[in-house]
């Protein structure tokens, strides 16, 4: 049973979209706090560059490419949903999920290699930040993919198509966080 409150639009923005933007706003501050702490430390410790050199820039770059491509399919899915084509929107969401799966698999491979070389989360403050920030981001990727599967399940039946846009907003946020993490953790020397 949906309350009347949910159907009102005094601010001129659909309630769901408004709420997702507030979710994104509060998430920005979470990652913002973590990354600001990292950047302040990084500036104070130029020697962290030597540790950062042990990360695999090529695999990180490949993952960036995968996430950006998955954002493209998310946008195409939104386009299909706006046109009222639920099954097509669902297929494109599945493609986005595939991107998430590839991302997490590559991540798992990277971490296994690094841990086998002796760079663990307790090695130093740099590695603590590396695993925590990327791990928190990976949790967001996994959560996003699960929500996306649920949205695709209803979208397939041409129901609740506005949700495709909402998960798309969230997915772009996850993408943009990675755009910050990749240069900060991998490239910066």
């Amino acid at each position: 049973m949906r309350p009347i409150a949910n159907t009102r639009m005094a601010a001129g923005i659909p309630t769901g979209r408004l709420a997702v933007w507030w979710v994104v706003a509060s998430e920005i501050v979470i990652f913002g706090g973590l990354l600001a702490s990292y950047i302040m430390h990084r500036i104070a410790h130029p020697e962290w560059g030597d540790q950062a050199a042990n990360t695999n820039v090529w695999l990180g770059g490949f993952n960036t490419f995968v996430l950006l491509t998955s954002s493209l399919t998310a946008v195409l899915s939104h386009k299909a949903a706006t046109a009222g084509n639920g099954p097509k929107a669902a297929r494109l969401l599945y493609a986005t999920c595939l991107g998430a799966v590839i991302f997490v698999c590559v991540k798992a491979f990277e971490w296994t290699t690094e841990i086998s070389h002796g760079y663990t989360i307790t090695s130093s403050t740099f590695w603590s930040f590396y695993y925590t920030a990327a791990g928190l981001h990976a949790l967001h990727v996994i959560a996003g993919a699960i929500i996306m599967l649920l949205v695709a399940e209803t979208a397939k039946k041409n129901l609740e198509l506005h949700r495709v846009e909402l998960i798309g907003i969230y997915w772009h946020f996850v993408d943009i966080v990675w755009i910050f993490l990749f240069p900060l953790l991998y490239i910066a020397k």
Partner: protein
Amino acid sequence: MAESIPADATHGHDVHHHAEQSFWSKYVFSTDHKMIAMQYMFTGMAMALIGGFMAYAFRMQLAFPGIEVPGYGTVTATDYNALVTNHGTIMIFWVAMPVLIAAFGNFLIPLMIGCDDMVFPKINRLSYQIFLLSAIVLISSFFVPGGGFGGGWTAYPPLSAKGEYNLTSLGSSLWLVAVALEFVAFLLGGINFVTTAMNARAPGMKMFDIPIVVWLIVVASILFMASVGPLIAGAVMLFMDQNIGTAFFDPDKGGDPVLWQHLFWFFGHPEVYVVLLPAMGITAEIMCVFARKKMFAYKTFIYTTFGTGVLSFTVWAHHQFVAGIDPRMANIFTVTTLLISIPIAEMCFIYIATLYGGSIRLTTPMLWALAFVAEFLIGGVTGIFLGASGADIYFHDTYFVLAHFHYTFFPIAIIGTFAGFTYWFPKMFGKMMNETLGKIHFWGTIIPFNGIFIPLFVLGGAGQHRRIYNYQHFPDLAGVEMQDLRVFATVSLIIMLAFQLVFFYNCFISWRKKEKDAGKNPWKANTLEWTAESPPPHGNWPELPTVYRGPYEYSVPGREEDYYPQNVPG
């Protein structure tokens, strides 16, 4: 009253027929905003009793070191650490937050903006359930090996990060989990509040027709959402430092303990305003109603709130003047801290200007509201000494600080809550509270409150440090010769706690009354909640109201009655 049909009432019919609900779906798993408000309210009050009992136990230890405390037993040093830590945590995160933001926000926002519920009722229910879980986790931390967390409510590492320092390794992890869960609960609630107030307003209600208290709860929710993120990240980092051995705050491995202080206070200082603003909003509502006067400078008050919110993000390092931060930084934070007293002072002047020339009625809620301003002012003025970095070097970590923040938090969390609770009690339960008992309870709380904390100002000025188990061991810290003041404070506390029985008795007999004697609008107030039945049914109104004017049109010239409800056309 509600002749005009709001645009969205057309599909109201299929929404508003309700079957009789079972006990569980009505009281426990309800999605109704009023029931969730009551759940938050009574959980918060129960936690306040626990926090108050903790205060009683450690104050007894301080006044009469080593005695067998009646009802508790001997307070050991480890107990003492856990009690002071969890007293602070509970009173801020499990009393002030749930009661002022969550309970009043849930109860008031839909009723005051004229809609039937929150925009996301199920998320609202989830928010309370996570909050309840967090409270259970916190209380359970007292019963694990080692006992509750004893590292101070600010949880500074390395003390909080290592079990061999704080002696409560499991308790400290549970404490962190509880705090993090609580933040998640209020993030969910806050998103609901902001979205509801932005989108679900009644037809005709413009931005500046929204009652002050709704505005202030919304601004407080936004402040919370914008400030809590770094501490959530910090809590994750500290949790991993405790349990995995990461190196964020560990100087041995290149980490920085001061980083935690930045993350904590970047949230911790705005948090003061997160709980202050709802209390100020409640006070503003009550003052307008019982002075029968239009709010003085309504828009200025709201703009001032925005100013306070923005400034509150720039003052956090005034908690860290002695933590080894750069003295040039300390100068900057001194200036911003002194600046933030300007909007708060302005708000107090607006209250006084609202009262000026009004026909003031000294009902119980009005007494609480007036006391809020008077007592909070003492808290504000003593803050000037601590915001100035030079004076703070002397006062830091003394009882002066402790008395100062109790003079801010007590008016906010206790006086503000009693003001709001006694004012909206008729709407919540349909019955009036007993005024005589209300006034006895008021004076029995306010006088002992000052009796507790004025001696602590004196002790702090004399150099008494915080968080010390037995002052007899520290003659240099005003340890022995000022014991009388400690006893005085403890006796005052016991008197104050005893007078709370009057409050619970008053609630009980008022609630037990057979007749619903409140009617719809006992205080003759303008805002929309007073046009609904008392207590409002599920869905609040048979036809949702439409709004024609601002919320504070009292004593309008040329009108027979001295109030002009928002929903009356014309």
